């Protein structure tokens, strides 16, 4: 079974909500739609306080090339444009809408769920539609898809890799999406291949999802250009560079764009969003969020509108257990601990994980015993123990030489450390400082 060669770990999978059918979360009373749900510049609002908006209506326009449109996920009145806490605990601009109980969709959205296979649009038209629908990477990084689909001149994509690894423990939203929307995903893959002008696609799935692999393999039979590739379970296989290596055996050089290897990687959720955007004219206004945790009463995969608060989701999943000590947006490895549960769901929210005190607790830190486990675990070939010492000593230039900018912040080093050292925290500080130094140098 294929996988990437360097480092990586295999934490307990804990896929508690696997196989739970996608359930629709009822419309909340109010939604807060953040304007920086994507990487790049925050979108610029085009609605005002008091406006009535329909479901699917554009409420904020992309500001610049690396940015994405944002649409209203509900029908209702714009209460205000205000700042709310996002998942990082900082305040950020949002459009707050009071929800009307009945949805009124914009005219162009096709609401039936019949599969539409044929697409006669040109690649440019497809990318334009994806751009208008505000599709971003739904795996968590939230990079605007239209930018990925328009690789810089001089590079030639050869193969589309659909990232369905879902290597994070606990999370199952992509898995369930594949089981229920398999055909749409296949058609979405085909459309994305047309947009990229490539004639090969690989849907990469870790083999802890045998049902999804079997289903997609069967559905892909009529499409000779689409392969389904099972991969060994190995975190962080969903990382772009790791996935390219696992599928194609090619390394992305340090500092280069992944497209130089000829591969474009898109999350399976984004592929589904591409299908809906192109074939159904439906912008990204909802997504599957997996609410999970060992003490959650009703763990499951819930289809909710963007802007629904995490609290609403938790309530729908049976309420917050008393033992909860930490609420994480995303998976346990790379997710962010939330400072309150009023944080809204964004396009990149793949899961909400509730942990009790024992699970979430950080253990006592001991001295480094130079065992080298972190070096073995690092999927980027770095030396985390060394980088941590350098970070503590503020040796930023030395950190740059040790390739800190290659760190993907996957957390494998902190996970394996027998002395419980907070390696990732220090690496992140170093990455930030070195990044600032590099930017300063470029500006000079």
């Amino acid at each position, binding site marked *: 079974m294929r996988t990437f060669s360097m480092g990586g770990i295999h934490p307990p999978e804990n896929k508690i909500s696997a196989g739970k059918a996608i359930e629709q979360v009822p419309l909340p009373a109010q939604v807060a739609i953040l304007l920086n749900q994507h990487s790049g510049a925050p979108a610029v609002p085009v609605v005002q306080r008091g406006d009535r908006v329909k479901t699917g209506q554009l409420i904020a326009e992309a500001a610049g090339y690396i940015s994405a449109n944002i649409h209203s996920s509900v029908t209702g009145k714009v209460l205000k444009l205000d*700042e709310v806490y996002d998942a990082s605990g*900082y305040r950020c601009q949002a459009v707050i809408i009071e929800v009307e109980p009945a949805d009124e969709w914009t005219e162009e959205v096709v609401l039936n769920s019949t599969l539409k296979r044929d697409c006669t649009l040109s690649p440019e038209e497809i990318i334009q539609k994806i751009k208008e629908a505000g599709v971003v990477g739904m795996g968590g990084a939230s990079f605007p898809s239209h930018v990925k689909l328009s690789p810089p001149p001089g590079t030639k994509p050869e193969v589309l890799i659909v990232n369905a690894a879902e290597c994070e423990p606990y999370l199952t939203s992509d898995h369930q999406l594949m089981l229920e929307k398999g055909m749409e995903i296949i058609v979405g893959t085909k459309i994305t291949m047309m947009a990229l002008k490539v004639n090969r696609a690989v849907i990469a799935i870790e083999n802890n999802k045998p049902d999804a692999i079997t289903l997609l393999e069967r559905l892909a039979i009529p499409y000779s250009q689409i392969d389904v590739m099972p991969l060994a379970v190995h975190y962080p296989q969903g990382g772009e560079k790791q996935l390219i290596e696992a599928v194609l055996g090619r390394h992305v050089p340090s500092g280069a764009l992944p497209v130089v290897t000829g591969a474009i990687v898109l999350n399976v959720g984004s592929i589904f969003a591409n299908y809906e955007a192109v074939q159904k004219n439906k912008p990204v206004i909802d997504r599957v969020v997996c609410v999970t945790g060992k003490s959650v009463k009703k763990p499951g995969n819930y289809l909710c509108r963007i802007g629904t608060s995490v609290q609403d989701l938790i309530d729908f999943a049976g309420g917050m257990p008393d033992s909860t000590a930490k609420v994480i947006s995303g998976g346990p490895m790379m997710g962010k601990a939330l400072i309150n549960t009023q944080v809204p769901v964004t396009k990149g929210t793949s899961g909400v994980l509730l942990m009790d005190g024992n699970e979430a*607790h*950080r253990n006592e830190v001991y001295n480094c015993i130079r065992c080298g486990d972190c070096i073995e675990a690092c999927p980027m070939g770095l030396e985390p123990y060394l980088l941590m010492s350098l970070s503590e000593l503020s040796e930023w230039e030395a950190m740059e030489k040790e390739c800190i900018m290659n760190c993907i912040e996957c957390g494998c080093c902190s996970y394996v450390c027998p002395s419980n050292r907070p390696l990732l925290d220090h690496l*992140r500080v170093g990455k930030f400082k070195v990044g600032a130094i590099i930017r300063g140098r470029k500006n000079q």
Partner: protein
Amino acid sequence: MNVILIAVIVLGGTGIILASVIFLTAKKFRVYEDPRIDEVQNVLPGANCGGCAYPGCRNFAEACVKSESLDGLLCPVGGNDVMKSVASLLGREVVEADPLVAVLRCNGTCANRPKTSRYEGVSSCMAASLLYGGDTACTYGCLGMGDCVTVCQFDALYIDKETGLPVVDEAKCTSCGACVRACPRHLFELRKKGPKSRRIFVSCMNKDKGALARKACSVACIACGKCEQVCTFDAISIKDNLAYIDYNACRLCRKCVEACPTNSIWELNFPPRKKAAEQEVSATKAETGKDATTV
């Protein structure tokens, strides 16, 4: 005897040859260095703190000797006294600068700013601020983990255990600016020490709207504009929901301190006010009769 003689001749000869090589090399590749650089360096404090914006005291001394006037060159640690000796060494005009001191623009003590979450990560303000908005509802205020204390070479900062905030020891602060650079929230500012060390500044950096700021912290600046109105010297400006007092225009009249409804403007080293003292007495009298009010 013969053996000793040979040894002396061989070793002595080699020594003389090598010495002349060294001598000639030293002559040939001699780098002329202005002797005044050494002299200036001897006058400087030798803290190598970087407060002058040069990497170390030697580089600063070089810059002093090379530049034509001492304008803009200041050793904050040595202050005007050291700059005077540097000027007399180099025979230049001394440019006097007002002494500065670091001030912390946050008063979010444990009592003023309730905690909303618990942080378990690395005890470093930088790491915490990269991770999230902080363990209180104020995303602008002090994180209290003491990155500033760690970088201070002069022992001029310590964390007050009761308030959880760093405190500047004015006598020790050399205004080198290390804390200004270290604070991820940019809470330190170098302000003029002022006559008799009297200073007035807004002790808050919260740029949220008034209601939110107030909810997060009881002594936050809510940008109500009262201080701007009472100031007769146009020293106060409000930008991004935050008042700022320009220390060049401020005449230390303290009207703004009285006007501020949230006590976010601080006065330091002033003698107690007569009026205020009287008011306090009457307030305490009133308190004994009625419910306690905040003073």
